[in-house]
């Protein structure tokens, strides 16, 4: 008899950074590098996504870590929120 196993996968939480007209682009890159340790290329790509699309998802995963990253971004002066992925 086959056993059916249900695996519940929790939807991840995303950290979103929002665009504003005053923050210098180089500052956004520096903050991403400091907080996430991403490469220069990845930080620049994310910064450009924020700039062109108005927002970018910069990290996804467990809620507690998403909240912690969001707070770090806010402490560094960027507009950031978390959201539960659909």
């Amino acid at each position, binding site marked *: 008899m086959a056993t059916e196993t249900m695996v519940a996968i929790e939807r991840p939480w995303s950290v979103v950074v929002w665009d504003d007209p*005053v923050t*210098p682009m180089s500052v956004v890159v520096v903050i991403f590098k400091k907080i996430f340790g991403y490469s220069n290329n990845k930080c620049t790509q994310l910064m450009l996504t924020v700039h062109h699309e108005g927002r970018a998802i910069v990290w996804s995963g467990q809620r507690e870590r998403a*909240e912690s990253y969001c707070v770090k971004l806010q*402490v*560094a*002066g960027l507009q950031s*929120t978390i959201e539960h992925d659909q």
Partner: protein
Amino acid sequence: MAGNKLFIRRRDGRIEVRLNDAGRAVAREAFGHVVAAERDPDHEWHASLNAPIDPASDDDDVVSKLHRQNEISTNAELAVMTLGEEFLNGAEAWAWLSTFQIALRSTAIANGLMTEEKLETCQPELLGYIRTLQQFLFALAECV
């Protein structure tokens, strides 16, 4: 050429502050406002320092809010304490950058300057203040 730079990273890792008295006065005002705004709920920058973490929720996690408040205050107070220094270490330079950035965004939010059009048409004195903070941030971002 480093002649016109406001901040310079030295080989030993320290960051030299080359702001003149007028520049340090702008920094003092900006840092002072962040310290005051974190303590005073009526300060015009207070709301921008307490933006929602999860806008879909009625209320954010209290521990996260307290952590944010503590970190912003610590950075701003460290920035104030080191205002007269000729050299900053990495942590102090990061505190300066974070506090300048909070001051910049809070100024824009408090004055309703959240679009390029509104920014370009705001009062010249206010635009000058914003451009000065941006100049400090450009220079610091090259060093931290």
